[in-house]
């Protein structure tokens, strides 16, 4: 019986294969010169008339007297342009010996005869014009997808510097980059990455800078994808990254065209996609997550002041709560007596050990943060009241936590916002909890042990072959933009770990 049923399912799959192979055969065939047959087959492909937004418009081309049909999907096509530059001229044509290309006034036109390619073009918003007696179709560029306009970047704010951010339309994003790099060596390649939804990814780089090996590596990684659909870059990032379980991000995600451009100019590769108001920059090092674009827009001392604040904030957010727990629990002799007495006095009425106390507050803080993110905006102010009053003041008055812990956690929480990059922010927040656990387990010894292991882990990460902490270690020729930046005139080198074709900036 088992065999039988197996055979049955086997036969079924075979039948399936046949039907799909029929489909494939149709898509690989050329279109015929018989207009009606062609239109019929396209109608069956597009399930016309069930499919509401597919339009077949028959036209008799005047002048040359030929029957023709325009096929397009009206929700993603610019109907106004089609009317004015295609249908109008075709109907009003006077000359009798003109070619179709000469009648139509739309900006791009292309002859294609493969059915599959025509379908792809139509699905991308272009219109196809079939003319009787011709065994190819004219593909007219008239795509128009709905999208918002270029707006301010939402998450990476700057005070000084350009404000515009990427939006969900890849062509707009490319134009924003081209606006900044007016050079013929800027290449925008497109690759189809998904089998069913046919999502395109755009690989943007400067061909006389980027290392061929790196480019090939990225292309191989993208080409190797075998999935039905990848909607946007946030998903693509997870498909192409190396260490999927690691808490450290290895691909930079930015929504600022100026930032993406400065990376391209250094020999990095940028990926763009429709539906993604952002760009992926690869490879990424630890420093690229730590930097923001503003530090280079601000003058040298101001920019470095910001960097100093950020590195301090990074350490404060990582270590304050765990250090507090370690010192109070294991190393109380380290604290000066007066301060120790003050801490002891506030902790007197609290029934929990310091570790539990800090953990409760940290957890509450993360909850407020997450709730603030998800809450519908009309109810937003409630979160502030709940967070500040109930969790802060009332918890202290109820002797659940001591006031000093509120200060410690608030300081750590506040500092964590200084790390702007969302992925690195998560890394820091998760590590904070890990450090807190190790501190409550083994005090400073635990913190140091975990920290050392963390550094060992960090130096062994590679993003597309580039060590995570380079150029700090292993050292490479570069402008030395690590914790602090140099004066612009001294940042003369592109990062050597990318092996760019031209190392020196002029």
């Amino acid at each position, binding site marked *: 019986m088992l065999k039988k049923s197996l055979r049955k399912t086997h036969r079924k799959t075979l039948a399936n294969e046949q039907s799909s192979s029929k489909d494939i055969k149709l898509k690989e065939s050329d279109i015929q010169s018989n207009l009606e047959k062609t239109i019929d087959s396209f109608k069956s492909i597009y399930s016309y008339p069930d499919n509401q937004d597919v339009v077949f418009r028959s036209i008799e081309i005047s002048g040359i007297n030929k029957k023709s049909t325009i096929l397009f999907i009206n929700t993603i096509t610019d109907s106004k342009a089609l009317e004015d530059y295609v249908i109008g001229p075709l109907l009003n044509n006077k000359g009798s010996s003109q070619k179709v290309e000469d009648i139509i006034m739309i900006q791009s036109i292309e002859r294609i005869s493969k059915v599959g390619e025509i379908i792809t073009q139509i699905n991308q918003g272009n219109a196809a014009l079939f003319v009787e007696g011709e065994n190819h179709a004219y593909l007219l560029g008239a795509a128009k997808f709905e999208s918002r306009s270029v707006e301010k970047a939402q998450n990476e704010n700057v005070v000084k510097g350009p404000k515009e951010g990427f939006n969900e339309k890849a062509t707009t994003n490319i134009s924003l980059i081209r606006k900044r790099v007016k050079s013929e060596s800027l290449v925008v390649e497109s690759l189809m990455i998904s089998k069913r939804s046919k999502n395109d990814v755009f690989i943007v780089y400067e061909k006389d800078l980027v290392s061929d090996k790196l480019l090939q590596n990225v292309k191989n990684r993208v080409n190797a994808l075998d999935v039905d659909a990848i909607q946007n870059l946030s998903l693509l990032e997870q498909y192409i990254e190396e260490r999927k379980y690691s808490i450290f991000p290895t691909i930079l995600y930015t929504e600022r065209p100026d930032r993406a451009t400065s990376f391209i100019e250094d020999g990095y590769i940028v990926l763009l996609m429709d539906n993604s108001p952002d760009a992926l920059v690869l490879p990424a090092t630890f420093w690229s997550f730590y930097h923001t674009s503003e530090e280079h827009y601000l003058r040298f001392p101001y920019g470095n002041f910001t960097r100093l604040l950020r590195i301090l904030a990074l350490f404060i957010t990582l270590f304050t709560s765990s250090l507090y727990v370690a010192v109070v629990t294991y190393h109380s*002799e380290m604290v000066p007596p007066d301060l120790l007495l003050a801490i002891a006095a506030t902790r007197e009425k609290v029934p929990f050990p310091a570790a539990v106390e800090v953990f409760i507050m940290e957890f509450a803080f993360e909850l407020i943060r997450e709730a603030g993110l998800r809450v519908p905006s009309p109810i937003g102010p409630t979160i502030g009241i709940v967070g500040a009053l109930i969790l802060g003041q009332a918890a202290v008055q109820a002797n659940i936590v001591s006031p000093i812990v509120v200060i410690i956690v608030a300081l750590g929480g506040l500092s964590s916002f200084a790390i702007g990059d969302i992925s690195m922010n998560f890394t820091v927040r998760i590590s904070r909890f890990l450090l807190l656990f190790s501190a409550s387990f083994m005090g400073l010894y635990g913190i140091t042990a975990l920290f*050392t292991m963390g550094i*060992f882990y960090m130096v062994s990460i590679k993003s597309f072959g580039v060590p995570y902490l380079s150029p700090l270690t292993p050292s490479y020729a570069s402008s030395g933009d690590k914790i602090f930046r140099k004066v612009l005139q001294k940042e003369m080198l592109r990062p050597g770990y990318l092996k760019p074709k031209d190392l020196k900036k002029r």
Partner: protein
Amino acid sequence: MEQSKQLIGIKEYIAIVLLMVGTKVTDNTPSILFEYIKNAGWMAPIINGLITIIPIYLLIKVFTNYKGKSLVEVSDHLFGKFFSFIILLTILLVAFVAVIVDTAIYTDIIGTMYFTKTPTIIIYGILMLVCAYGATRGFEQIGSVAWTVFPYLQVSLFLALILTIGQGNAAFLFPILGDGAWDVVKESSLRLSIYADFLYLFLFYPYIKSVKVFKKGTWLALMFIIINISITMVCYIFLFDYKTIMQLNYPYHEVIRTISLGFIINMEAFFLPFWLIASFVRFSIYLYINAILLGHLFKIKHFEYLIPSLATLVVFIGMIPENPTFIIFDIKEKLLLIATPLFFLLPFLMWLIAKLKGEFKHANKRDIR
């Protein structure tokens, strides 16, 4: 993408050597020196450093003949399979005992000075866990970590020293020669093996970017180490005088307990993390050295996989002495005495055999096997 093996640059190399040898000044090595040389103990690192130039010079001379070959391969080539096996086995044993002794000492330091109530096995276990993790990452990674943390460690040491000098008394340094010049030289040179780690550095010869980097790095590192160790030891005398320091087992930790900065009276918890990081990196390197040697001797190609079991073994053997503060101290003293001739004579032997075999004449024409 295939992740190509990277070779180590000069910064990473120097950082590794400094952490390997320089960290010794923070355990009981200074006590051993002070015990015999009294208040001239700080001269021992300098005298030994000067003597050490000879074996290092000879080794470098031998090794520049063989491009990209490590200590084990050169030894195989010079001594032949059988004798090389015995020599390398001795080196391995010394290295292994050194790891056990040193980790036991460091565990004892943590246990007696900072975590008096914590069971030894937990302290030891965490120490070896971190080191084993670090060592399995690979040599380049150890180098990278060493260089990343090194500047901060050096700054913390300097801060400790500056505070020490401020609170110390320079007059304790006299009589400057202690028991007399001859005693100082004799007793120091008997403990030459505080620099024996330099012999093991030649295991890393193929991992270093170039011969030049190796030569320059080794000499620079030796210089830095001599300066670091002797200045630190001078500071110990400033603070404690020689009588006290002969009694102290772990002078560095007593120092950071004693010094204070403004309103912060006890600073040891501030210096502890830096010292811990240095120790973690140091023992990662030691474990890696042991794994290389063991892997070569018993023909285990992926020797990185040996590291976790080596680390476990170290924990269990290191736990055996009931009173590590005294027993291990004794063992370490003996080990220093035993390793000294090995460290001094082996380079001589290698150089002599290479010379007799006429290796230096046709240096670049010949390749081993």
